[in-house]
């Protein structure tokens, strides 16, 4: 077991090292110059040269790679500040939004899917399916702006910004998160509900469900104990794979809200 773990760790380190090479050298191949990017197109060539020297980007590529890897994560050349806090602040904000969206969309999606399955073929089923699938096709940056227009600009109920003022309490912060969370919920609801619906319909039609019903088990107990336990497995898998999307997409959703929630 120890050998296995050590082997996996060793492979992980090699993978990370190769990744670092790709990231670094891909950055070198891209056109542009650090000093020019920081000072702008109209800066004097002498100023660009001085800044390039100050940043060390006029050294050999291998030397630059060594400097970078030995001072990782190091200092942002662009922001002249340590990279660690820039990343953690941004990640913290993205996580907050993702967790809030997760707490809302997962129960809502499962409930919607199961309810649709129970009303299979009826108008409730069709409504949930059509609404869910339609919402899935609207990108966050479109639904975000429409929601801001309705709830912030016209009705004035919710703040435009995604960031609560400094020192705000828990509920105030939550209020600022409502608008950016809705586009994420809209995208994921249709997906999760569809999986939950299909799983539930399959489970409802299974032999064990029919047996349980014939045994005289009340419908609610039968659904809770037998149908959901089996039908939700694929849904849980889908939820897990969507978590990454949730963190990534939360930055674009909050960008639609007026202030940047996650620094990119």
């Amino acid at each position, binding site marked *: 077991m120890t050998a296995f773990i050590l082997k996996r760790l060793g492979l992980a380190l090699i993978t990370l090292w190769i990744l670092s090479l790709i990231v670094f050298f891909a950055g070198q191949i891209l056109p542009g110059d650090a000093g020019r990017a920081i000072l702008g197109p109209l*800066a004097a060539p002498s*100023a660009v040269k001085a800044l390039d020297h100050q940043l060390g980007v006029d050294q050999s590529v291998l030397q630059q790679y060594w400097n970078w890897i030995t001072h990782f994560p190091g200092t942002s050349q662009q922001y002249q500040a340590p990279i660690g806090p820039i990343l953690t*602040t941004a990640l913290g904000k993205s996580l907050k939004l993702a967790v809030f969206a997760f707490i809302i969309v997962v129960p809502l999606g499962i409930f919607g899917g199961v309810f649709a399955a129970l009303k299979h073929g009826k108008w409730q089923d069709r409504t949930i399916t059509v609404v869910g699938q339609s919402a899935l096709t609207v990108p966050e940056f479109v639904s975000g702006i429409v929601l801001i227009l309705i709830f912030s600009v016209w009705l004035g109920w919710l703040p435009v910004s995604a960031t609560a003022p400094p020192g705000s309490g828990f509920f105030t912060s939550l209020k600022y998160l409502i608008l950016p969370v809705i586009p994420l919920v809209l995208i994921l609801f249709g997906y999760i509900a569809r999986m939950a619906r299909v799983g539930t319909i399959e489970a409802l039609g299974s032999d064990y469900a029919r047996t349980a019903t014939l045994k005289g088990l009340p419908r609610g107990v039968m659904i809770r104990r037998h149908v959901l336990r089996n039908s939700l497995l694929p849904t849980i898998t889908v939820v897990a794979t969507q978590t990454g999307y949730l963190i990534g997409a939360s930055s674009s959703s909050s960008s639609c809200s007026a*202030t940047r929630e996650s620094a990119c």
Partner: protein
Amino acid sequence: MRGGNDELDRLRGERTELENHYIDELVSGRLDRRDFLRRGSMIGMSTGLLGAILAACGGSSSTTTATGSGSGATPSSGKKGGTLRVAGVTPTGAVNPLTLFDAGGLLMLNQTGEFLIFDSNLKLALQPMLALSWKPNADGSVWTFTLRPNVTFHNGKQMTADDVVYTFKQLSDPKVASNALSAFTGVLTPDGVKKVNATSVEFHLESPNGNFPYLVSSDNYNAIIVPNGTDFGKWQKTFVGTGAFKLGSYTQGSGATFVPNPSYWGTKPLLSGTQFKFYDAQQPMILALQGGDVDVIAQFTPAGATQLLSGSTYKIITLKSANHRELSMRNDQAPFNDAKVRQAVAYSLDRTGMVAALLGGKGTVANDYPFGPRFPSTDTTVPQRSQNINMAKQLLQQAGHSSINATLFTEQYQEIPELAQAIQQNAKQAGININLKVETQTKYYGKATYGNSDWLDGQMSLVDYGDRGVPNVYLVSPLTSKGPWNAAHFKNSQYDSLVKQYVAALDLQTQKQVAGKIQRLLLQETPLVIPYWVDGLTASTPSITGLNPTSIAQLYLNTASMG
């Protein structure tokens, strides 16, 4: 009136030859009151003195005394207190006074930092800020600045000549990564910055420069005065300056807060604080203003802002600006090596239509030379060019073409892609077929050197130029034979010599005379086309008063009030 003339004689007796020259111009009517204020302030005449001279000449004085950072705005009598929430563009990098160049960064810089001189767009005059007065020697090659006494930095240290000398030595040092070098190269070197005494500094220039005060004013946005020995790379931790506000907090990529500076030398702020929120694009800023999340948008462009410009829901401050777009054509390559072809392009453009459609009317038609309504030296007798498709076709035929094909490179920035399309459509009517290449700014500017940049190498190239208080940069960099941004590859020794004369000229009449010659020469040669000047725009909710913006995205707030 006799009493007035006695007073004028008394005032004249104490003035230099150049100052008396301007008084002569005012008395003779060749200089109107506004231009007298602009020019007088430029050579260091105090606002009080300018007012006294105007009063002695029979007019009422409308000058205001300096009130500190907000001296361009009418001192507000609004209510005290409240936190003003301002939307600004996210700074693209570190807030470093030496290196920054972006609108978001320079908006931050001026919240706590002050300049020797404030170039007020509202008053269209230079106003004393950390310098009390300034004057040139006889030929304008040495400028002496007297500093304001009893000014302290936010760290409690008193501001002296040592701080000013340190700041300008750093800004003008070619071995330092200073963005101000684009203004100081060929004008000022570190050796030229000399302390006279604790409250006086001299600038010994490389050649005479009649407009030097603009280069140490807020126009040169890097030039805030910092304490001697400041590490510019760490400045964003303290935002140390002399301004009416000092740093509360600064959060990278998110926003900043500022609180009043109790030991400020000028008018103390009415607000109890300011809060800046950063946005990556203009549309979210507009939504934030509409949704009540902010009270002010520091600066916006007319493109995509019809919600703000139509109706009277918001207060809009419009500043006449020299912000413009330049369409250069390769003067050294066929078919644009023939001036007639270049003129044909110029005559094909519907400039009035462009101002209406692309800027919502918030701009002024321009005339293919970098002199415009912003500059008092502009010779206004030169006729304006307007669309004339027949003439454009004739010019092409005279040059031996029935039609031509060309490629235009440009950048994705503000309304420029739409302007490029408008140029393409207009030019087509005259038989000029333009193929558009709209690129990201990184790709378009490239390395910003000849041979490595679509901006400088393209057959036709459309670029933006930000506002400046004087046209010197526009005249030198993109148009002189050795200019670093000469995308037109225009080389004309007569032009070079005229520009040299213009830069050195100290008095307005000489500047106007030379400007007229430059304007006519550039119309004749048409190395580039300038379709319009873009106004500077600031928006706020109706109750906000006392805002003092500049057309390069600075915003002083010490006279601002919540209403």
